[in-house]
């Protein structure tokens, strides 16, 4: 465990906690992008350059911007003073804490994680492309189909019907 890892992990967790706890929705999304960027840096540190850069491209460039657009279109200008959490927030946080406790216990007690030696590996782009075009070509095609369907579906769901025509 190095200093770089600790700093990146701290940034990521701080970003995600802020994203889930802040009052202003736009602040939440901005904190979220910090969390996503921290995750991307963790991927880079693990040697998965392609995944890390894709993470920035997709999450910061697309998902966060999309969320911001939806917030702009739906948020009322008046600031609400009521709670940002729902009525069953206590149950929800208890469940989350329980899940974390179980996961942490499982990770600590497993014998697998303590025995592995770590050779230096890096995922170069060329092997990834080869794998996508040979071993994983069917998932890739399905992925393309899914994304097309999602694109059309999102447009159909979100498009504003003109009054009288529908």
């Amino acid at each position, binding site marked *: *465990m190095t200093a770089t*890892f600790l700093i990146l*992990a701290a940034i*990521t*967790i701080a970003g*995600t906690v802020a*994203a*889930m*706890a802040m009052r202003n*929705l736009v602040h939440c999304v901005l904190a*979220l992008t910090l*969390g996503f960027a921290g*995750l991307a840096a*963790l*991927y880079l540190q*693990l*040697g*998965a350059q*392609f*995944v890390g850069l*894709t*993470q920035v491209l997709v*999450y910061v460039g*697309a*998902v966060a911007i*999309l*969320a911001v657009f*939806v917030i702009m279109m*739906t*948020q009322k200008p008046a600031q609400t003073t009521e709670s*940002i*959490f729902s009525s*069953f*927030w206590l149950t*929800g*946080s208890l*469940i*989350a804490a329980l*899940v*974390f406790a179980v996961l942490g216990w499982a*990770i*600590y007690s497993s014998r697998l*994680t*303590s025995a*592995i030696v*770590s050779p230096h*590996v890096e*995922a170069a782009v060329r*092997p*990834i492309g080869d794998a996508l075009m040979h071993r*994983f070509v069917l998932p890739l095609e399905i*992925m393309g189909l*899914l*994304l097309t369907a*999602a694109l059309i*579906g*999102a447009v159909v*769901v*979100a498009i*504003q019907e003109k009054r009288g025509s529908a």
Partner: protein
Amino acid sequence: MSSLTSYLLVSALIFSIGLAGALTRRSAILVLIGIELMLNAANLNFIAFWRYGPNPQALTGVMFAIFSIGIAAAEAAVGLGIVLAVYRHSKTTELDQMNSMKG
């Protein structure tokens, strides 16, 4: 504590934060974001297991993460589209107030 363990712990923490957000926030947009965070935690696990796993040349973890990012993008697009559509009907994105099935 080995490197893999620390990555797994960070991932578990992110997952729990995402879960807590998805379960407790009132805004539908933030619930979606919480789900995205949980997916991201899974991605971090895939990459960590790929890096410290027995056969990193096979790139299975990396592939899984790439496909997972694609799925997450599709999910975000459709999910946020639904939030918009619901907003048009009920004029709110607060989940507490979406308590009627009638449009």
